[in-house]
Protein backbone atom coordinates (compact mmCIF):
# COMPACT_ATOMS: atom_id res chain seq x y z
CA UNK A 1 0.00 0.00 0.00
CA UNK A 2 1.43 3.38 -0.95
CA UNK A 3 -0.13 6.56 0.35
CA UNK A 4 -1.35 8.71 -2.57
CA UNK A 5 1.20 7.10 -4.88
CA UNK A 6 2.32 9.41 -7.66
CA UNK A 7 0.83 12.45 -5.93
CA UNK A 8 1.94 15.39 -7.95
CA UNK A 9 -0.33 18.39 -7.34
CA UNK A 10 2.01 21.15 -6.21
CA UNK A 11 5.10 19.13 -7.06
CA UNK A 12 7.50 21.14 -9.17
CA UNK A 13 9.21 19.35 -12.07
CA UNK A 14 12.48 21.18 -12.80
CA UNK A 15 12.95 22.05 -16.47
CA UNK A 16 14.24 24.61 -18.96
CA UNK A 17 11.13 24.96 -21.14
CA UNK A 18 9.42 28.13 -22.35
CA UNK A 19 6.71 27.81 -19.68
CA UNK A 20 9.30 27.20 -16.95
CA UNK A 21 11.15 30.37 -17.94
CA UNK A 22 8.10 32.64 -17.74
CA UNK A 23 7.81 35.10 -14.87
CA UNK A 24 5.76 33.51 -12.05
CA UNK A 25 3.52 36.61 -11.93
CA UNK A 26 2.66 36.01 -15.58
CA UNK A 27 1.90 32.33 -14.92
CA UNK A 28 -0.28 33.10 -11.88
CA UNK A 29 -2.16 35.84 -13.75
CA UNK A 30 -2.56 33.64 -16.84
CA UNK A 31 -3.82 30.78 -14.67
CA UNK A 32 -6.48 33.07 -13.17
CA UNK A 33 -7.51 34.30 -16.63
CA UNK A 34 -7.76 30.72 -17.94
CA UNK A 35 -9.60 29.43 -14.88
CA UNK A 36 -12.07 32.33 -15.19
CA UNK A 37 -12.67 31.43 -18.84
CA UNK A 38 -13.10 27.79 -17.92
CA UNK A 39 -15.97 28.70 -15.61
CA UNK A 40 -17.77 30.30 -18.55
CA UNK A 41 -17.87 26.94 -20.35
CA UNK A 42 -20.92 24.86 -19.60
CA UNK A 43 -21.72 22.26 -22.29
CA UNK A 44 -19.41 19.29 -23.11
CA UNK A 45 -18.34 20.63 -26.58
CA UNK A 46 -17.23 23.89 -24.90
CA UNK A 47 -14.30 22.04 -23.42
CA UNK A 48 -12.75 20.90 -26.73
CA UNK A 49 -10.51 24.01 -27.07
CA UNK A 50 -9.58 23.75 -23.39
CA UNK A 51 -8.33 20.18 -23.79
CA UNK A 52 -6.30 21.30 -26.82
CA UNK A 53 -5.01 24.30 -24.84
CA UNK A 54 -3.91 22.02 -21.99
CA UNK A 55 -2.13 19.74 -24.47
CA UNK A 56 -0.38 22.79 -25.99
CA UNK A 57 0.69 24.00 -22.52
CA UNK A 58 1.99 20.52 -21.74
CA UNK A 59 4.02 20.52 -24.96
CA UNK A 60 5.38 24.03 -24.33
CA UNK A 61 6.44 23.00 -20.82
CA UNK A 62 7.98 19.71 -22.04
CA UNK A 63 6.01 17.80 -19.42
CA UNK A 64 4.35 14.65 -20.74
CA UNK A 65 0.62 15.05 -21.20
CA UNK A 66 0.10 11.73 -19.39
CA UNK A 67 1.92 13.17 -16.34
CA UNK A 68 -0.33 16.23 -16.41
CA UNK A 69 -3.42 14.01 -16.67
CA UNK A 70 -2.18 11.84 -13.81
CA UNK A 71 -1.87 14.87 -11.52
CA UNK A 72 -5.66 14.86 -11.15
CA UNK A 73 -5.67 11.46 -9.46
CA UNK A 74 -5.70 12.76 -5.87
CA UNK A 75 -9.00 14.60 -6.54
CA UNK A 76 -10.47 11.85 -8.69
CA UNK A 77 -12.78 10.80 -5.87
CA UNK A 78 -14.19 14.32 -5.64
CA UNK A 79 -14.68 14.47 -9.41
CA UNK A 80 -16.37 11.06 -9.54
CA UNK A 81 -18.62 12.10 -6.66
CA UNK A 82 -19.60 15.34 -8.45
CA UNK A 83 -20.19 13.49 -11.73
CA UNK A 84 -22.40 10.91 -9.98
CA UNK A 85 -24.34 13.61 -8.18
CA UNK A 86 -25.06 15.45 -11.46
CA UNK A 87 -25.71 12.27 -13.42
CA UNK A 88 -28.34 10.81 -11.13
CA UNK A 89 -29.93 13.86 -9.55
CA UNK A 90 -30.50 16.21 -12.48
CA UNK A 91 -34.14 16.25 -13.55
CA UNK A 92 -35.00 16.06 -17.28
CA UNK A 93 -35.75 13.65 -20.10
CA UNK A 94 -34.99 10.12 -18.88
CA UNK A 95 -32.50 7.99 -20.88
CA UNK A 96 -32.50 4.90 -18.66
CA UNK A 97 -33.12 3.84 -15.08
CA UNK A 98 -30.90 1.86 -12.68
CA UNK A 99 -33.20 0.90 -9.84
CA UNK A 100 -34.07 4.12 -8.06
CA UNK A 101 -31.39 6.03 -9.99
CA UNK A 102 -32.55 7.95 -13.04
CA UNK A 103 -30.14 9.01 -15.78
CA UNK A 104 -31.45 11.94 -17.76
CA UNK A 105 -30.22 13.62 -20.95
CA UNK A 106 -29.65 16.86 -19.03
CA UNK A 107 -27.96 14.93 -16.21
CA UNK A 108 -25.55 13.26 -18.62
CA UNK A 109 -24.61 16.63 -20.14
CA UNK A 110 -24.26 18.27 -16.71
CA UNK A 111 -22.18 15.37 -15.36
CA UNK A 112 -19.86 15.47 -18.36
CA UNK A 113 -19.49 19.25 -18.18
CA UNK A 114 -18.93 19.32 -14.43
CA UNK A 115 -16.44 16.45 -14.54
CA UNK A 116 -14.50 18.02 -17.39
CA UNK A 117 -14.54 21.46 -15.79
CA UNK A 118 -13.29 20.19 -12.45
CA UNK A 119 -10.64 17.98 -14.04
CA UNK A 120 -9.42 20.80 -16.28
CA UNK A 121 -9.34 23.21 -13.33
CA UNK A 122 -7.07 20.82 -11.45
CA UNK A 123 -4.96 20.22 -14.58
CA UNK A 124 -4.35 23.94 -15.20
CA UNK A 125 -3.54 24.52 -11.52
CA UNK A 126 -1.20 21.50 -11.65
CA UNK A 127 0.48 22.90 -14.80
CA UNK A 128 1.19 26.12 -12.90
CA UNK A 129 2.71 24.26 -9.96
CA UNK A 130 4.62 21.78 -12.10
CA UNK A 131 6.39 24.56 -14.00
CA UNK A 132 6.97 27.03 -11.15
CA UNK A 133 9.31 26.28 -8.25
CA UNK A 134 7.69 26.95 -4.86
CA UNK A 135 10.25 29.69 -4.15
CA UNK A 136 9.52 31.34 -7.48
CA UNK A 137 5.76 30.89 -7.00
CA UNK A 138 5.84 32.54 -3.60
CA UNK A 139 8.03 35.36 -4.98
CA UNK A 140 5.44 35.94 -7.69
CA UNK A 141 2.56 35.79 -5.24
CA UNK A 142 4.37 38.12 -2.85
CA UNK A 143 4.84 40.70 -5.60
CA UNK A 144 1.23 40.38 -6.76
CA UNK A 145 -0.02 40.74 -3.19
CA UNK A 146 2.39 43.56 -2.30
CA UNK A 147 -0.35 46.27 -2.32
CA UNK A 148 -1.84 44.47 0.70
CA UNK A 149 1.21 45.57 2.72
CA UNK A 150 -0.47 48.97 3.02
CA UNK A 151 -3.20 47.22 4.98
CA UNK A 152 -0.47 45.69 7.21
CA UNK A 153 -1.10 42.24 5.77
CA UNK A 154 2.01 40.05 6.39
CA UNK A 155 2.64 39.37 2.69
CA UNK A 156 6.26 38.15 3.02
CA UNK A 157 5.43 35.80 5.89
CA UNK A 158 2.46 34.39 3.96
CA UNK A 159 4.66 33.82 0.91
CA UNK A 160 7.34 32.09 3.00
CA UNK A 161 4.70 29.90 4.64
CA UNK A 162 3.46 28.90 1.21
CA UNK A 163 6.99 28.08 0.03
CA UNK A 164 7.57 25.85 3.01
CA UNK A 165 4.16 24.19 2.75
CA UNK A 166 4.81 23.34 -0.90
CA UNK A 167 8.37 22.22 -0.19
CA UNK A 168 7.14 19.83 2.50
CA UNK A 169 4.33 18.20 0.50
CA UNK A 170 6.54 15.38 -0.87
CA UNK A 171 8.36 15.01 2.46
CA UNK A 172 5.10 14.66 4.39
CA UNK A 173 3.78 12.10 1.94
CA UNK A 174 7.00 10.12 2.31
CA UNK A 175 6.68 10.30 6.10
CA UNK A 176 3.03 9.22 5.96
CA UNK A 177 4.00 6.30 3.75
CA UNK A 178 6.78 5.36 6.18
CA UNK A 179 4.40 5.45 9.18
CA UNK A 180 1.78 3.46 7.22
CA UNK A 181 4.32 0.76 6.42
CA UNK A 182 5.54 0.70 10.02
CA UNK A 183 1.95 0.24 11.23
CA UNK A 184 1.23 -2.44 8.59
CA UNK A 185 4.36 -4.33 9.72
CA UNK A 186 2.86 -4.25 13.23
CA UNK A 187 -0.39 -5.76 12.02
CA UNK A 188 -2.49 -2.68 11.22
CA UNK A 189 -5.13 -3.23 8.53
CA UNK A 190 -6.11 -0.26 6.37
CA UNK A 191 -7.70 -2.13 3.49
CA UNK A 192 -10.55 -4.18 4.88
CA UNK A 193 -13.83 -3.24 6.52
CA UNK A 194 -16.24 -0.40 5.97
CA UNK A 195 -15.44 3.28 5.65
CA UNK A 196 -15.79 3.82 9.41
CA UNK A 197 -13.39 0.99 10.26
CA UNK A 198 -10.88 2.20 7.68
CA UNK A 199 -11.10 5.77 8.96
CA UNK A 200 -10.58 4.58 12.53
CA UNK A 201 -7.58 2.51 11.40
CA UNK A 202 -5.88 5.76 10.30
CA UNK A 203 -5.81 7.21 13.83
CA UNK A 204 -2.53 5.41 14.71
CA UNK A 205 -1.06 6.98 11.56
CA UNK A 206 -2.31 10.50 12.23
CA UNK A 207 -1.04 10.74 15.81
CA UNK A 208 2.68 10.09 15.02
CA UNK A 209 2.30 12.16 11.85
CA UNK A 210 1.11 15.21 13.81
CA UNK A 211 3.88 14.76 16.39
CA UNK A 212 6.40 14.53 13.57
CA UNK A 213 5.02 17.59 11.77
CA UNK A 214 5.22 19.73 14.91
CA UNK A 215 8.75 18.51 15.71
CA UNK A 216 9.79 19.18 12.12
CA UNK A 217 8.24 22.66 12.15
CA UNK A 218 10.18 23.48 15.33
CA UNK A 219 13.46 22.20 13.87
CA UNK A 220 12.89 24.01 10.59
CA UNK A 221 12.18 27.30 12.38
CA UNK A 222 15.46 26.93 14.31
CA UNK A 223 17.37 26.07 11.12
CA UNK A 224 15.87 29.08 9.29
CA UNK A 225 16.76 31.36 12.18
CA UNK A 226 20.33 30.05 12.17
CA UNK A 227 20.46 30.92 8.44
CA UNK A 228 19.73 34.54 9.29
CA UNK A 229 16.01 34.50 8.43
CA UNK A 230 14.08 37.24 10.21
CA UNK A 231 10.29 37.19 9.61
CA UNK A 232 9.18 40.28 7.74
CA UNK A 233 12.72 41.55 7.12
CA UNK A 234 13.53 42.52 3.52
CA UNK A 235 15.18 39.77 1.49
CA UNK A 236 16.91 39.87 -1.86
CA UNK A 237 16.66 37.13 -4.49
CA UNK A 238 19.02 34.83 -6.37
CA UNK A 239 16.78 35.24 -9.41
CA UNK A 240 15.03 38.61 -9.14
CA UNK A 241 11.74 38.67 -11.02
CA UNK A 242 12.00 40.39 -14.38
CA UNK A 243 8.94 40.94 -16.54
CA UNK A 244 9.84 40.50 -20.21
CA UNK A 245 8.01 40.93 -23.51
CA UNK A 246 7.32 37.23 -23.75
CA UNK A 247 5.55 37.38 -20.36
CA UNK A 248 3.30 40.08 -21.79
CA UNK A 249 2.85 37.99 -24.95
CA UNK A 250 1.98 34.87 -22.93
CA UNK A 251 -0.56 36.77 -20.85
CA UNK A 252 -2.12 38.36 -23.95
CA UNK A 253 -2.28 34.92 -25.61
CA UNK A 254 -4.13 33.57 -22.55
CA UNK A 255 -6.65 36.42 -22.71
CA UNK A 256 -7.09 35.96 -26.48
CA UNK A 257 -7.62 32.25 -25.95
CA UNK A 258 -10.34 32.95 -23.36
CA UNK A 259 -12.09 35.31 -25.82
CA UNK A 260 -11.77 32.64 -28.51
CA UNK A 261 -13.24 30.02 -26.17
CA UNK A 262 -16.19 32.33 -25.39
CA UNK A 263 -16.83 32.76 -29.15
CA UNK A 264 -16.46 28.99 -29.58
CA UNK A 265 -19.03 28.37 -26.85
CA UNK A 266 -21.46 30.73 -28.56
CA UNK A 267 -21.11 29.49 -32.13
CA UNK A 268 -19.16 26.26 -32.77
CA UNK A 269 -20.04 24.45 -29.54
CA UNK A 270 -23.69 25.43 -29.92
CA UNK A 271 -23.64 24.03 -33.48
CA UNK A 272 -22.05 20.76 -32.28
CA UNK A 273 -24.63 20.50 -29.50
CA UNK A 274 -27.46 20.91 -31.99
CA UNK A 275 -25.99 18.03 -34.05
CA UNK A 276 -25.58 15.65 -31.15
CA UNK A 277 -28.76 13.94 -30.18
CA UNK A 278 -28.49 12.25 -26.82
CA UNK A 279 -29.61 8.59 -26.75
CA UNK A 280 -33.16 8.33 -25.48
Amino acid sequence: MKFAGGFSIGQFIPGESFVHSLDPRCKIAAAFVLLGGLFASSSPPDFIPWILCLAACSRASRIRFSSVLRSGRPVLFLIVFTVALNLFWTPGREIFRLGFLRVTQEGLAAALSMGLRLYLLVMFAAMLMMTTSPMSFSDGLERLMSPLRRLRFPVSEMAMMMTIALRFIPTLFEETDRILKAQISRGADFESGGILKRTRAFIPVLVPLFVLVFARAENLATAMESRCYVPGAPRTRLNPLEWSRRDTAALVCSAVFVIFSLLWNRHAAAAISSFVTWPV
Partner: protein
Amino acid sequence: MGKDPIISIRGAVYSYKGAPSPALCGADLEVLPGEWVALLGANGSGKSTLAKICNALLEPTQGDCFSLSMDCRDPACVPLIRQGAALVFQNPDDQIVASIVEEDVAFGPENLGLTSGEIRRRVDRALELTGLSEHRRRGSHSLSGGQKQRLALAGALALEPKVLILDEATSMLDPEGRAALLECLRELNASGMTLIQITHIMEDIARAGRIAVMQSGRIVWDGLPADFWRGEYLRFGFDEPGELALYRELISRKMIPEGTRPIAEDMAEALCL
Protein backbone atom coordinates in the same frame (compact mmCIF):
# COMPACT_ATOMS: atom_id res chain seq x y z
CA MET B 1 51.90 35.61 21.31
CA GLY B 2 49.03 33.13 20.86
CA LYS B 3 45.97 33.64 18.70
CA ASP B 4 42.78 35.05 20.23
CA PRO B 5 40.02 32.47 20.50
CA ILE B 6 37.36 32.66 17.78
CA ILE B 7 34.82 31.10 20.18
CA SER B 8 35.05 31.75 23.88
CA ILE B 9 32.49 30.40 26.32
CA ARG B 10 33.01 30.85 30.05
CA GLY B 11 30.77 29.41 32.75
CA ALA B 12 27.73 29.12 30.44
CA VAL B 13 24.52 28.05 32.12
CA TYR B 14 21.30 27.33 30.22
CA SER B 15 17.99 25.74 31.23
CA TYR B 16 15.13 24.80 28.91
CA LYS B 17 11.66 25.71 30.13
CA GLY B 18 10.14 22.89 32.15
CA ALA B 19 13.33 20.80 32.14
CA PRO B 20 14.16 19.24 35.53
CA SER B 21 17.86 20.14 35.30
CA PRO B 22 19.89 22.69 33.34
CA ALA B 23 21.24 21.63 29.94
CA LEU B 24 24.44 23.55 30.59
CA CYS B 25 25.86 24.20 34.04
CA GLY B 26 29.09 26.12 33.79
CA ALA B 27 30.45 25.03 30.40
CA ASP B 28 33.80 26.45 29.34
CA LEU B 29 35.18 26.18 25.82
CA GLU B 30 37.73 28.13 23.86
CA VAL B 31 38.32 27.45 20.18
CA LEU B 32 41.21 28.97 18.25
CA PRO B 33 40.95 30.02 14.58
CA GLY B 34 41.62 27.13 12.20
CA GLU B 35 41.10 24.42 14.82
CA TRP B 36 39.02 21.28 14.25
CA VAL B 37 37.42 20.45 17.58
CA ALA B 38 35.40 17.28 18.12
CA LEU B 39 32.79 17.73 20.83
CA LEU B 40 31.77 14.41 22.35
CA GLY B 41 29.29 13.39 24.98
CA ALA B 42 26.29 11.21 25.70
CA ASN B 43 22.76 12.27 24.72
CA GLY B 44 21.58 15.10 26.96
CA SER B 45 25.10 16.15 27.93
CA GLY B 46 24.53 19.64 26.50
CA LYS B 47 26.45 19.47 23.21
CA SER B 48 23.63 20.77 20.98
CA THR B 49 22.76 23.51 23.48
CA LEU B 50 26.39 24.64 23.45
CA ALA B 51 26.34 24.66 19.63
CA LYS B 52 23.16 26.79 19.61
CA ILE B 53 24.77 29.22 22.07
CA CYS B 54 27.83 29.52 19.77
CA ASN B 55 25.40 30.39 16.92
CA ALA B 56 23.48 32.88 19.10
CA LEU B 57 20.28 30.82 18.74
CA LEU B 58 20.18 30.56 22.53
CA GLU B 59 21.35 33.05 25.09
CA PRO B 60 23.03 31.66 28.22
CA THR B 61 21.26 32.58 31.44
CA GLN B 62 24.64 32.93 33.16
CA GLY B 63 28.23 33.14 31.99
CA ASP B 64 29.79 34.70 28.90
CA CYS B 65 29.75 33.69 25.27
CA PHE B 66 31.78 35.39 22.57
CA SER B 67 31.61 34.17 18.99
CA LEU B 68 34.02 35.85 16.58
CA SER B 69 34.84 38.32 19.39
CA MET B 70 31.18 39.40 19.50
CA ASP B 71 28.95 39.07 22.53
CA CYS B 72 26.14 36.59 21.84
CA ARG B 73 23.88 38.63 24.15
CA ASP B 74 24.18 41.79 22.07
CA PRO B 75 21.15 41.85 19.70
CA ALA B 76 23.13 43.93 17.20
CA CYS B 77 25.76 41.16 16.98
CA VAL B 78 23.31 38.25 16.58
CA PRO B 79 22.94 38.40 12.75
CA LEU B 80 26.73 38.74 12.35
CA ILE B 81 27.34 35.77 14.66
CA ARG B 82 24.80 33.61 12.81
CA GLN B 83 26.51 34.49 9.56
CA GLY B 84 30.05 33.99 10.88
CA ALA B 85 29.46 30.82 12.94
CA ALA B 86 27.16 28.75 10.74
CA LEU B 87 25.38 25.69 12.08
CA VAL B 88 24.56 22.42 10.29
CA PHE B 89 22.03 20.17 11.99
CA GLN B 90 21.63 16.42 12.21
CA ASN B 91 18.66 15.89 9.90
CA PRO B 92 19.04 17.60 6.51
CA ASP B 93 15.27 17.33 5.85
CA ASP B 94 14.69 19.69 8.77
CA GLN B 95 16.88 22.46 7.35
CA ILE B 96 16.22 22.40 3.60
CA VAL B 97 13.82 25.26 2.91
CA ALA B 98 13.54 25.37 -0.88
CA SER B 99 12.54 22.71 -3.40
CA ILE B 100 15.44 23.34 -5.76
CA VAL B 101 19.07 22.78 -4.76
CA GLU B 102 20.43 26.18 -5.80
CA GLU B 103 17.43 28.02 -4.36
CA ASP B 104 18.02 26.38 -1.01
CA VAL B 105 21.72 27.29 -0.99
CA ALA B 106 20.71 30.86 -1.82
CA PHE B 107 18.32 31.10 1.15
CA GLY B 108 20.97 32.34 3.63
CA PRO B 109 22.58 34.95 1.33
CA GLU B 110 19.08 36.16 0.34
CA ASN B 111 18.37 36.78 4.02
CA LEU B 112 21.56 38.86 4.22
CA GLY B 113 20.18 41.21 1.57
CA LEU B 114 23.06 40.66 -0.88
CA THR B 115 22.87 41.52 -4.57
CA SER B 116 21.81 38.73 -6.93
CA GLY B 117 25.33 38.70 -8.44
CA GLU B 118 26.92 38.16 -5.03
CA ILE B 119 24.29 35.54 -4.12
CA ARG B 120 25.08 33.67 -7.34
CA ARG B 121 28.82 33.82 -6.66
CA ARG B 122 28.32 32.39 -3.17
CA VAL B 123 25.91 29.71 -4.39
CA ASP B 124 28.35 28.65 -7.13
CA ARG B 125 31.23 28.46 -4.66
CA ALA B 126 29.26 26.56 -2.01
CA LEU B 127 27.98 24.06 -4.59
CA GLU B 128 31.48 23.57 -5.93
CA LEU B 129 32.95 23.03 -2.46
CA THR B 130 30.32 20.41 -1.64
CA GLY B 131 30.44 18.75 -5.07
CA LEU B 132 26.80 19.53 -5.86
CA SER B 133 27.31 21.80 -8.89
CA GLU B 134 25.85 19.24 -11.30
CA HIS B 135 22.73 18.86 -9.13
CA ARG B 136 21.95 22.58 -8.84
CA ARG B 137 18.66 22.41 -10.77
CA ARG B 138 17.49 19.18 -9.16
CA GLY B 139 14.65 18.94 -6.68
CA SER B 140 16.03 18.84 -3.14
CA HIS B 141 13.68 16.00 -2.17
CA SER B 142 15.14 13.79 -4.91
CA LEU B 143 18.69 13.85 -3.47
CA SER B 144 20.20 10.95 -1.53
CA GLY B 145 20.76 11.28 2.23
CA GLY B 146 24.44 12.11 1.74
CA GLN B 147 23.67 14.67 -0.96
CA LYS B 148 21.00 16.26 1.24
CA GLN B 149 23.49 16.67 4.08
CA ARG B 150 26.01 18.17 1.65
CA LEU B 151 23.23 20.52 0.53
CA ALA B 152 22.66 21.55 4.15
CA LEU B 153 26.42 22.12 4.41
CA ALA B 154 26.37 24.17 1.19
CA GLY B 155 23.55 26.30 2.65
CA ALA B 156 25.74 27.04 5.66
CA LEU B 157 28.87 27.66 3.53
CA ALA B 158 27.00 30.17 1.36
CA LEU B 159 26.96 32.43 4.43
CA GLU B 160 30.79 32.40 4.13
CA PRO B 161 31.30 31.65 7.80
CA LYS B 162 34.60 31.62 9.66
CA VAL B 163 33.39 28.86 11.98
CA LEU B 164 31.34 25.85 10.96
CA ILE B 165 29.49 24.00 13.71
CA LEU B 166 28.23 20.53 12.79
CA ASP B 167 25.66 19.11 15.17
CA GLU B 168 25.88 15.36 14.51
CA ALA B 169 25.78 16.12 10.81
CA THR B 170 27.26 12.75 9.84
CA SER B 171 25.15 10.55 12.09
CA MET B 172 22.39 9.83 9.54
CA LEU B 173 24.73 9.11 6.64
CA ASP B 174 25.90 5.83 5.19
CA PRO B 175 29.70 5.18 5.16
CA GLU B 176 30.01 6.54 1.61
CA GLY B 177 28.07 9.72 2.38
CA ARG B 178 30.03 10.21 5.60
CA ALA B 179 33.37 9.77 3.83
CA ALA B 180 32.37 12.37 1.20
CA LEU B 181 31.27 14.85 3.87
CA LEU B 182 34.41 14.29 5.97
CA GLU B 183 36.59 14.83 2.92
CA CYS B 184 34.77 18.09 2.28
CA LEU B 185 35.30 19.12 5.91
CA ARG B 186 38.99 18.23 5.69
CA GLU B 187 39.38 20.53 2.70
CA LEU B 188 37.52 23.34 4.44
CA ASN B 189 39.68 22.99 7.55
CA ALA B 190 42.83 22.91 5.40
CA SER B 191 41.71 26.21 3.85
CA GLY B 192 41.59 27.76 7.33
CA MET B 193 37.99 27.28 8.42
CA THR B 194 37.41 26.55 12.10
CA LEU B 195 35.32 23.41 12.67
CA ILE B 196 33.40 22.32 15.74
CA GLN B 197 32.04 18.85 15.13
CA ILE B 198 29.57 17.32 17.53
CA THR B 199 29.61 13.59 16.99
CA HIS B 200 29.22 10.14 18.50
CA ILE B 201 31.12 8.43 15.70
CA MET B 202 34.69 7.56 16.62
CA GLU B 203 35.89 7.57 13.00
CA ASP B 204 34.87 11.24 12.77
CA ILE B 205 36.76 12.13 15.94
CA ALA B 206 39.98 10.72 14.57
CA ARG B 207 40.23 13.59 12.12
CA ALA B 208 39.88 16.33 14.72
CA GLY B 209 42.89 18.23 16.04
CA ARG B 210 41.38 18.52 19.49
CA ILE B 211 38.77 16.66 21.49
CA ALA B 212 36.43 18.03 24.15
CA VAL B 213 34.16 15.76 26.16
CA MET B 214 30.91 16.95 27.73
CA GLN B 215 29.13 15.42 30.68
CA SER B 216 26.10 16.82 32.52
CA GLY B 217 26.37 20.25 30.91
CA ARG B 218 30.11 20.72 31.45
CA ILE B 219 33.30 20.18 29.50
CA VAL B 220 34.99 17.47 31.57
CA TRP B 221 37.95 16.72 29.33
CA ASP B 222 39.70 18.82 26.72
CA GLY B 223 42.91 17.79 25.04
CA LEU B 224 44.78 16.32 22.12
CA PRO B 225 43.53 13.21 20.29
CA ALA B 226 46.76 11.32 21.06
CA ASP B 227 46.09 11.71 24.80
CA PHE B 228 42.45 10.78 24.30
CA TRP B 229 43.30 7.58 22.45
CA ARG B 230 45.79 6.60 25.16
CA GLY B 231 42.88 5.49 27.29
CA GLU B 232 40.80 8.54 28.19
CA TYR B 233 38.07 7.37 25.85
CA LEU B 234 37.52 4.30 28.03
CA ARG B 235 36.95 6.53 31.06
CA PHE B 236 34.04 8.20 29.27
CA GLY B 237 32.57 4.95 27.99
CA PHE B 238 33.34 5.42 24.27
CA ASP B 239 33.87 2.47 21.97
CA GLU B 240 37.22 1.74 20.47
CA PRO B 241 37.29 2.48 16.75
CA GLY B 242 38.39 -0.40 14.53
CA GLU B 243 41.58 1.31 13.46
CA LEU B 244 42.71 2.07 17.03
CA ALA B 245 44.09 -1.41 17.84
CA LEU B 246 46.23 -1.30 14.70
CA TYR B 247 47.28 2.26 15.58
CA ARG B 248 48.35 1.22 19.08
CA GLU B 249 50.33 -1.72 17.74
CA LEU B 250 52.13 0.46 15.18
CA ILE B 251 52.97 3.05 17.86
CA SER B 252 54.23 0.41 20.33
CA ARG B 253 56.50 -1.04 17.61
CA LYS B 254 57.64 2.50 16.77
CA MET B 255 56.63 1.96 13.16
CA ILE B 256 54.81 5.29 13.03
CA PRO B 257 55.69 8.45 14.95
CA GLU B 258 53.72 9.53 18.01
CA GLY B 259 51.16 12.16 17.10
CA THR B 260 50.05 10.39 13.93
CA ARG B 261 46.25 10.47 13.78
CA PRO B 262 44.59 7.06 14.08
CA ILE B 263 43.02 7.23 10.63
CA ALA B 264 43.88 4.83 7.83
CA GLU B 265 45.34 7.33 5.36
CA ASP B 266 47.58 9.04 7.98
CA MET B 267 48.88 5.70 9.24
CA ALA B 268 49.55 4.49 5.70
CA GLU B 269 51.36 7.73 4.90
CA ALA B 270 53.47 7.48 8.08
CA LEU B 271 54.35 3.85 7.26
CA CYS B 272 55.48 4.80 3.77
CA LEU B 273 57.85 7.52 5.03
